[in-house]
């Protein structure tokens, strides 16, 4: 075997395995365990299905839900949050527009909070939705999608209890692969 081939093989071996294969194996195992732990408890990877958060999120997009976002603070207006059902495997992704104790209503597509029209600069799709006054209790938030150009009957939205909010959507948008 020529010297150059031996050198290339040696370099490849070092790149792939490292100078000590035992250390490499230990590092790989530790990193894998860490990544698994983080992705199952703190930053939950999500894949978007549905049109209710267009244009920000569309079917096939990827993102994360940061479960620590509300560990030391409360959800805020306009936060995009993951809302769990029976567990975290399938979640709704909606935007908070009403906070506990407030009243929310919709007239001609415009959201009114406590009787005042809400400015929503993120809103691009809008139609003439109508919704009667919704009163939020001390542990309820009002959540809704951004795609309000669709029929109100096909859009899932409303009051959700605080304990169902898993965390805040993070890394706003990873393009679908």
């Amino acid at each position, binding site marked *: 075997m020529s010297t150059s081939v031996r050198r290339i093989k040696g370099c490849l071996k070092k790149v792939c395995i490292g100078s000590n294969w035992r250390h490499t194996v230990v590092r790989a195992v530790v990193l894998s365990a860490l990544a698994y732990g983080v992705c199952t408890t703190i930053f939950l990877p999500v894949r978007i299905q549905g049109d209710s958060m267009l244009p920000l999120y569309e079917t096939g997009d990827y993102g994360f839900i940061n479960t620590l976002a509300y560990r030391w603070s409360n959800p805020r207006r306009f936060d995009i949050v993951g809302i769990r*059902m*029976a567990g*975290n495997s*399938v979640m*709704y992704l909606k935007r908070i527009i009403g906070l506990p104790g407030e009243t929310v209503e919709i007239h001609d597509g415009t959201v009114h909070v406590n009787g005042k029209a809400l400015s929503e600069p993120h809103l691009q799709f809008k139609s003439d939705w109508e919704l*009667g006054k919704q009163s939020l209790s001390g542990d309820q938030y009002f959540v809704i999608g951004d795609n309000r150009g669709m029929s109100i009957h096909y859009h899932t*939205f409303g*009051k959700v209890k605080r304990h169902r909010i898993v965390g805040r959507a993070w890394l706003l948008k990873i393009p679908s692969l």
Partner: protein
Amino acid sequence: MAVKNPVTIAAAIVGIVVVGWFVYSSQQSEEDRIRQRLYDLAEYVSTTKQTGDSARLIHIAGLRKFFTEGVTVQVNEDIPKITGRDNLLQMAHIALQHEPGLTVAFTDISVTHNDNTQQARVNTTVVVTGVQSDKARSIDAQELEMALVKAEGEWRMETVQFVKVMELQ
């Protein structure tokens, strides 16, 4: 005789752990049986792709074994409660007639079962995926609360209630 080879020791430990895991997992608890029942139901519904009313009816009749005779299904307050297994199967036949490519899956299954009773409660999310006319996938997910009873050796659904995650007054 002293075993000096650490690889042999490590292999023996791994072997014991693997065998032990297989033995443990082979002993199915009632909770596991209930979960498997839901998986079986989902698989059965998802394979209902028969064309023709007769074939579909025969296939749907097989759903009887998953429900009690007096099963009730409550979707929400606006839709009348479905009462009785025959009515439920009739609704299933109509639904699958219009959406033959439906696939159903249960996730996040949480089972509460008392060993002394033949009853159990299940909280789960059902995910239903369909194919629309323009070949686009439609997906819907709902949270369910179910009460099951064990009859004739099999777990069957007695009540099914859809849970409202987001409410409107």
